[in-house]
């Protein structure tokens, strides 16, 4: 009977425990896959955005109609001089160095021959059997990474038709890139933990990017794991548990990227993923052991009993053994049996509580995991921060029946937290008020500061807790930092109207949710940054195309600064032109904020290039972009009374080759508004503007030269028609005086010259 009792208690407890461990490990597995899925989705998005930027850059190469004209002549007229070729080549080289995207830019004529290339050794090669040639004639084309023999490296070629100013396809323009950028994308390991990694393989199983735990030799390292094989065979996305290239069990998610015919793999070692599952298992086993010991002890006591109460107890014990844990015996005795009955009763109560909480824990954990999976499944597809925040707070509040949930986003530069969304009326009101908290202020501020969850089980017992009049019923609260590594992105704050309504278990469940939210926020910001870059590059293309249509330089520059200010959402943009004689920079065009009373004017500011403090002068002197991300920290920075809100400034020189044409200066009313990337984009724009200004100037100069020559001709003719030297001199002084706008002109003749050389002429 002793053994039966122990067994019958042991078995249900064991089953419940096993179920709990199983469910939690399944949930954790799902968590890992969800996280890997988000990472793979992000990588794929990054690759695609990069490819789009490459295409935009390719568009930009001949955005200027003059360059297009020059290359068209070269392509159509093969025999043209080496001079013309080298002009186009250096134009392409500048372009390629500036954008930094391509390792080679080249142009192929309709017969498939490379006419000009930034790598002159490639010129003359015949590309007729290359897909990037014949597909490039028809439209945009991207080659999969493939091994280029003469370069001994894997490269990707992007090509598109070269369309002349008259709208005819006259060849192909192509850019070659190596795999460095793809490698960089794969090496970013946000959300991948200590053992996670992402890498890329080609359709021939060759590893194309660096492995975290092994060496990659391009063309010599191959991977045939289940994940790799599935991705390449099915050319589709998927996931699974398999052994990786080190023969270590991993959870893996693979994405097929059809544009490049490659697979992206995101993998995470199973042991790390299941560490927490093992903890659950250990706790469960501990509980099982304690329960069995108690049950065993109780059963031992029971079997020690004699006579009727003992039989009663035995019956009760048997009931317990059947699983009826609510069994109580009504023996009211003052002797040992009574004590025994009492302790039996309290034992059953304890037993039933233990098993009850175990069941409750399983239910809670299952629900938490389901919610966490549900949240993360939805998160990986949301690419809008507002929508993400709304979804998260609603899901969290509703799934766990909390009183309230809201999210604050953390602004590192300002050190403050801004309300980004919350549930219910209170959430909407706080959002409308633009509720802000300083780092360290309140629970949310403390969580952001410490990057640790802050839990208050009973708000009435915490003297430092600050009540919020909009949420009068809050009795417990937890603030969860949303962070990736050390970087805090925001805080999820959850409140409950029950004392102890939020406990350690809630923190655990919420932790896996905020982890997912962190990755999703990171995804959103990466995708947004890249989308912004792509848009900005498109704006550069648009501005240069529009500007090249305007022949008048000042009008053209007015257009440029106006469009630059609008398209890039700047506070102000202006251009200075360099005067070579005085070595000053003269303001020529200002782009003001929409509705500004000064729109259309530009003042008369003139800055000597030598001036020490001026950022504009500094950009002109160094011929490099100058970024100042907080003008108030810059000693000697000169404020402009018309631009009181300038917070950061970026000045880039307008250069043609090495010649300084002027400076483009843009300003923002935000601190830290400009990055190196912005500088590179504005430099691209600046070089387009510089070339246009230079072209316009050349045009004016050649017109002037022509006019002068015509005038000289007329005067010469008139002089020649004179019959005597005197007449000739008369005509000469009159016409010259007229031409140069003088009131009186005098000619003195040296009689010796007149006598000698004058007769010869």
């Amino acid at each position: 009977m002793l053994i039966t009792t122990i067994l019958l208690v042991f078995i249900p407890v064991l089953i419940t425990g096993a179920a709990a461990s199983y469910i939690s490990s399944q949930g954790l597995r799902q968590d890992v896959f969800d996280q890997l899925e988000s990472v793979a989705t992000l990588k794929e998005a990054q690759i695609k955005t990069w490819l789009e930027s490459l295409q935009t850059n390719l568009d930009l190469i001949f955005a200027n109609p003059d360059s297009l004209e020059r290359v068209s002549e070269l392509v159509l007229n093969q025999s043209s001089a080496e001079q013309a070729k080298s002009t186009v080549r250096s134009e392409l080289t500048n372009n390629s160095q500036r954008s930094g995207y391509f390792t080679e830019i080249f142009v192929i004529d309709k017969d498939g021959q490379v006419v000009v290339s930034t790598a002159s050794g490639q010129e003359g090669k015949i590309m007729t059997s290359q897909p990037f040639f014949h597909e490039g004639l028809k439209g945009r084309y991207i080659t999969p990474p493939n091994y280029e023999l003469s370069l001994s490296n894997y490269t990707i070629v992007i090509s598109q038709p070269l369309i002349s100013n008259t709208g005819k396809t006259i060849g192909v323009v192509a850019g070659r890139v190596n795999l460095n950028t793809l490698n960089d994308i794969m090496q970013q390991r946000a959300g991948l933990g200590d053992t996670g990694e992402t890498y890329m393989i080609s359709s021939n199983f060759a590893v194309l990017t660096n492995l975290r735990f092994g060496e990659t030799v391009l063309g010599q390292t191959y991977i045939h794991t289940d994940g790799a094989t599935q991705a390449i065979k099915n050319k589709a996305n998927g996931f699974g548990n398999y052994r990786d290239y080190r023969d270590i069990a991993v959870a893996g998610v693979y994405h097929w990227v059809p544009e490049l015919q490659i697979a992206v793999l995101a993998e995470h070692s199973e042991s790390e993923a299941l560490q927490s599952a093992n903890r659950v298992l250990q706790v469960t086993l501990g509980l099982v052991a304690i329960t069995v010991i108690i049950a065993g002890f109780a059963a031992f006591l029971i079997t020690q009993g004699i006579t009727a109460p003992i039989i009663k107890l035995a019956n009760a014990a048997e009931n317990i053994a059947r699983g009826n844990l609510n069994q109580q015996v009504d023996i009211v005795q003052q002797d040992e049996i009574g004590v025994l009955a009492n302790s039996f009763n309290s034992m059953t109560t304890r037993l039933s509580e233990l098993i009850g909480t175990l069941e409750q824990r399983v239910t809670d954990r299952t629900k938490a995991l389901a919610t966490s999976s549900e949240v993360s499944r939805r998160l990986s597809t949301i690419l809008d921060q507002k929508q993400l925040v709304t979804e998260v707070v609603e899901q969290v509040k509703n799934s766990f029946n909390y009183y309230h949930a809201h999210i604050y986003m953390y602004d590192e530069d300002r050190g403050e937290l801004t309300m980004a969304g919350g549930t219910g009326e209170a959430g909407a009101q706080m959002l409308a008020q633009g509720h802000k908290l300083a780092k360290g202020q309140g629970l949310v501020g403390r969580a952001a500061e410490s990057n640790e969850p802050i839990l208050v089980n009973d708000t009435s017992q915490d003297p430092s807790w600050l009540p919020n009049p909009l949420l009068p019923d809050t009795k417990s609260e937890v603030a969860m930092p949303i962070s990736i590594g050390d970087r805090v992105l925001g805080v999820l704050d959850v409140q409950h109207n029950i004392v102890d309504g939020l406990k350690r278990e809630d923190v655990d469940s919420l932790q896996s949710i905020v982890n997912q939210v962190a990755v999703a926020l990171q995804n959103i910001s990466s995708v947004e940054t890249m989308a912004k870059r792509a848009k900005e590059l498109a704006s550069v293309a648009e501005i240069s195309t529009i500007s090249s249509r305007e022949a008048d330089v000042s009008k053209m520059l007015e257009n440029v600064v106006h469009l630059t200010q609008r398209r890039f959402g700047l506070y102000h943009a202006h251009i200075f032109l360099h005067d070579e004689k005085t070595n000053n920079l003269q303001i020529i065009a200002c782009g003001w904020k929409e509705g500004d009373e000064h729109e259309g004017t530009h003042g008369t500011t003139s800055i000597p290039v030598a001036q020490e403090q001026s950022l504009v002068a500094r950009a002109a002197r160094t011929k490099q972009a100058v970024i100042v991300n907080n003008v108030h920290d810059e000693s000697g920075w000169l404020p402009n009374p018309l631009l009181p809100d300038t917070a950061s400034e970026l000045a880039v020189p307008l250069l043609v080759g090495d010649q300084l044409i002027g400076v483009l200066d843009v300003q923002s009313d935000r601190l830290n508004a400009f990055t190196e990337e912005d500088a590179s984009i504005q430099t691209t724009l600046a070089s387009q503007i510089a070339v246009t200004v230079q072209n316009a100037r050349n045009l004016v100069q050649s017109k002037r030269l022509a006019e002068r020559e015509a005038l000289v001709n007329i005067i010469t003719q008139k002089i020649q028609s004179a019959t005597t030297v005197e007449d000739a001199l008369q005509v000469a002084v009159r016409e010259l005086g007229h031409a140069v706008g003088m009131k009186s002109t005098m000619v003195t003749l040296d009689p010796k010259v007149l006598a000698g050389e004058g007769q010869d002429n």
Partner: protein
Amino acid sequence: MNKTSLNKIGLLIGLMAILISACGTQPTPVVPTDKVTIQLSWFHGVEYAGFYTAVEKGYYKEENIEIVLNPGGPEINPIDEVQNDKAQFGITSGDSLIIAKTNQQNFVSVATIFRKNPLTITSLKKDNIQRPEDLVGKTVGVYSLDLSNFFDLPFLALLNRTGLDRNSMNYALIEDFQGANEIKAGNMDAMSGMFATDQQVMAQDAGDELNFIYYNDYGYDVYINTIFVKEEFIQSNADLISRLIKATIKGYQYAIENPEEVAGFAVKYDPNLDLKYQQSVMKAQIPFISTGDAPIGSMDADVWETTQQILLDFDLIAAPIDLNTIYTNQFTSQ
């Protein structure tokens, strides 16, 4: 339960036992192994590593195929061997197949070993000959001084494509094909028609650094070692071809991933081969087999078009043939 029903159950169990044991001993029908002979284009060497590997690793066995590999040589024309049914599969260059077709010999290429043409003009790095123009005024080593040898066709095609005058350079006959010996002896500045794969290794062994002008880059695109069969053979043996190519490509995939190991397989076929040399050549030819952008063994229409155009340009064929009849990717894209 009474005794009769117990007996019945006993009987039933007995019957089932007999039935099961009968199933077990039933002999499965034996499919006879396909026996196939393959005529190589040249002597045994690691160029054919995929075939050796498929034998060694049992890939042909998995496909129920047994193969015999006949080495080639200067006296053996794989086209004749297949035409006369001495072999079912042969290896030769794509241009030979087009020419054969115009002579009413109908073959179809079913896969290629090298996806890229390894033929080069080789010179010493220090001479800085990087482009065809750099050859002007130099002495080029060729197979026949009047460029009439079939192996000089790539050079003629290159002159044609780049518009260089054949009289703008001098010619010398290549007699020593070992590495850059002829160049170092001062007989010539460059050698035409060398394989980047072997040449590179021989030169490296001799401590020389080479420059290559790839014919591939100047419009001479030819598959130099395609696997071919008779046209009528495809109709009746599509499944066999499919299995054989599948196993062979699997062999090449293994070979590029394990170049040192498979060089050893080649040596088993010809013990006179130098293992180290074969290993080096195997490594050098990886990028020609696996290009990264298309499956191993598959072929591109443009290359066949270019090949045919060159034959037309030099009057080696009178009229174009339908290229869809000369090659197929149906077996490599499985």
